[in-house]
């Protein structure tokens, strides 16, 4: 167990170094933040002086190393644009994104899995066909279109839901949540739905496909032959064996969504990390972009590790090999 953790941390450090290096290479092509930080009235000397103070005159490799050295000490600097500490900026935004992603993931699992099972068990049922058709739309229509359509219907036409923002939030130390206030919950509905629609469709299609596969296997036939009721066959024998890819994909999707909920966040002015990143890119806010990419890689690595541990829980075979100490030998 300890060996796995040490290996994981080593991997993580390497991945993050590579990500940081690639990021700094890309920053060189983004352009010059100094132009955006000073106004039209500033003289050439002031521009040069600011560039020097920011260390932008140094070669990329030097900029990269000084970033790594400071980052190791936990210092990510302050944002060029907001002039606030990068870590506190991100810490402030993270709860908003996390809440949005978690609610939409719960929605996706709660709706996607039962729908998928239903569609697999009753493939000819008209309701299942309709669900499959709608899921097609969910996979193919971009999130911002869904967001804007939702806003037009529920904010402009019906006036039921707010078009933007997070509503009222409750603060617990550095963490903030909108789940505890009525306006916060109302504000969450549309962004979470538009974000979840893709996940729902995706998980439903995945579960259906896997179920159809598993339902054809011998042990399901034997289970039926033993006279077990359908409910037990479907949910204990079949569904459980479909869960591996679903767990993997959900884990990856959560990572994806935390990192790239930026479209939904922009449409709904959801004050999360995605919105922060979009603005950082526009202003070439190098400290924010660099720290954000670091955090995203940490999230992905952590999620991957968690997914691995969930595997152990879901698949007893892995548990046995785990205790036996062998890697993949059976």
């Amino acid at each position, binding site marked *: 167990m300890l060996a796995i953790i040490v290996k994981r941390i080593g991997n993580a450090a390497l991945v993050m170094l590579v990500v940081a290096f690639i990021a700094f290479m890309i920053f060189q*092509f*983004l*352009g*010059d*933040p100094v*132009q*955006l*930080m*000073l*106004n*039209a*009235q*500033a*003289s*050439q*000397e*002031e*521009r040069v*002086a*600011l560039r020097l*103070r*920011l*260390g932008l005159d140094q070669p990329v490799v030097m900029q990269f190393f000084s970033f790594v050295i400071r980052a190791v000490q936990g*210092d990510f600097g*302050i*944002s*060029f*644009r*907001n*002039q*606030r*500490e990068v870590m506190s*900026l991100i810490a*402030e*935004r993270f709860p908003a994104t996390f809440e949005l992603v978690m609610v939409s993931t719960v929605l996706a699992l709660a709706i996607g899995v039962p729908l998928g099972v239903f569609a697999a068990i009753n493939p000819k049922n008209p309701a299942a066909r309709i669900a499959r058709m709608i899921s097609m739309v969910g996979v193919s229509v971009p999130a*911002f279109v869904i967001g*804007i359509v939702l*806003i*037009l219907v529920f*904010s*402009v036409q019906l*006036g039921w839901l*707010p*078009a*933007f*923002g*997070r509503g009222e939030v409750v603060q617990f130390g550095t963490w903030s949540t909108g789940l505890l206030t009525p306006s916060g919950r109302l504000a969450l509905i549309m962004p979470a739905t538009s974000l979840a629609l893709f996940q729902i469709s995706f998980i439903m299609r995945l579960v259906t496909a896997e179920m159809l596969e598993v339902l054809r296997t011998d042990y399901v036939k034997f289970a039926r032959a033993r006279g077990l009721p359908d409910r037990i066959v479907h949910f204990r024998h079949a569904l459980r064996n479909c869960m591996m890819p679903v767990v993997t994909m959900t884990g990856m999707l959560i990572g994806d969504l935390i990192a790239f909920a930026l479209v939904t966040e*922009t*449409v*709904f*002015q959801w*004050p999360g990390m995605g*919105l*922060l990143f*979009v*603005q950082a890119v*526009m*202003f*070439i806010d190098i*400290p924010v972009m660099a720290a954000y990419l670091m955090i995203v890689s940490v999230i992905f690595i952590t999620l991957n590790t968690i997914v691995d541990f969930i595997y152990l829980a879901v698949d007893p075979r892995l548990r046995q090999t785990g205790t036996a100490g062998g890697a993949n030998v059976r």
Partner: protein
Amino acid sequence: MKSFLKTSVACIAALTLTTFSAAAENVLKWGAQRDVVSLDPYSYGDTFTIAVLNHVYEGLVRYDDNLQIAPALATSWEVVSPTLWRFHLRQGVTFHDGAPFTADDVLASLTRVSDPASPLRGNLPAYQSAKKIDDFTVEVTTTPNYPLLLNDLTNIVIFDKEWLVANKAEAPTDVGKGVEGYATAHANGTGPFKVVSRKPDAETVFEVNKAWWDKPRHNIDKIVFTPITSAATRVAALLSGEIDFTNSAPLQDIPRLQASSDIKVLASNELRTVFFVFNRTDKTIASDITDKNPMNDIKVRQAMYQSIDIDALQKKVMRGLSRNTGSMVAPAIPGYVEALDSRLPYDPDAAKKLLAEAGYPNGFTFSFVCENDGYVNEEEICQAVSSMWARVGLKATLDVAPTSLQTAKFESGKFDVGILGWANEPMIDSYSILVQVVHSKTGTSGVFNWGGWKYPEVDALIDAAGKELDREKRLDFQSEALTKIKDDVAFLPLHQQPMAWATGSKVESLVQLTDNKPRHWLTKMK
């Protein structure tokens, strides 16, 4: 019948109650296209941030309803000598935390803004030092005969010295040092509104300052400022009544907003003039003419000018909302002359003839560098103009990218034709464009002289204007400089770009000036 009466009485009571409670507090919900970067007005040379923060902080002088300079925290001033200005300060003004406003506050603020690390230093180029005479008199030393100190001071807002000292914010935040400043997230000014709370990118709440020194012309109790970056969401929020005002209504949605009975659109032209600039060095950057630079021939520049169908551009690309111009500055800018506003006529045949005379009967290719996020419909403008030029044989290789990328190309002169827009802010005087854009690159002048154009006589006129305290004489110099560059077709002006605000049903009136800055201390709500 009785029950009917009862219900109607109850209804009326309920109605009056709601109107009463609505009248009790006037909340203006403002949806902007983006957030202010900071609560510190000295943090960033950003006109929009300063415009929003002007609700909280004030300068010694300000612009009035006609963009004329008017007293604010200073009641009067005089020029003692060519290098010395004396300001008499307003008495009885207090900051939001209750501290009195005195000469020390002015000194602390001027020191802070002229700090080497201050991004706003360039806004006060002539400032040398300041001295306190008594609690309500300050003397400012400038470079000799600098005429635009008052214009510059409109944007230099005043902090409270005690507050700065108590919070260790005497110096501006230096991004290079990587340390956060207190004033970034806190504010304490003398203005008509005070900051109650701020959540970056989500919501900033301002409350009326009941102790404001000026007689309020507004009736707002609270402003809730929310950035809504997505244009479609902003429009939806306005239509659904979630916001009462936006200072950025997307041009393409104006007809739709106007169709709604509750919404009023205020569309006009702002101060910013958009124009093309030419590479005027000896060599082209990307052209099939390599031995010389055709842009140095006035006939070529005039051909480019006359092949632009400005009316088509105005109707199709700008949706009829821009103001076609032959002038490099908007009418509201001092130094503007009406005679300069006439354009060379659109005449593709004349353009072809001019090109033939210049020795390019079949035209030539050149690079055309353009941004996609700078000015209103910028990319579309460049695409349309490229195709207009193509009709007379001028083959532009259009290079479109974000400002942050293109600026590097402009600054290093890697373009044959480029685009630039100039609002003359915060100075609101044509001296701004003349010294920053038109002047050749010498000393601190000509920062935006990207193409290396050189007009020694014009430089002399600009330098003379920069040292002329007499306003009329100075403006004569500036107008003459503008005439000379127009005669040589040094630049290719297009239009003053449109601006559009929109208000919902709760706003009764507001003041929209050509500088495109919301001033809600002049806004009336119903």
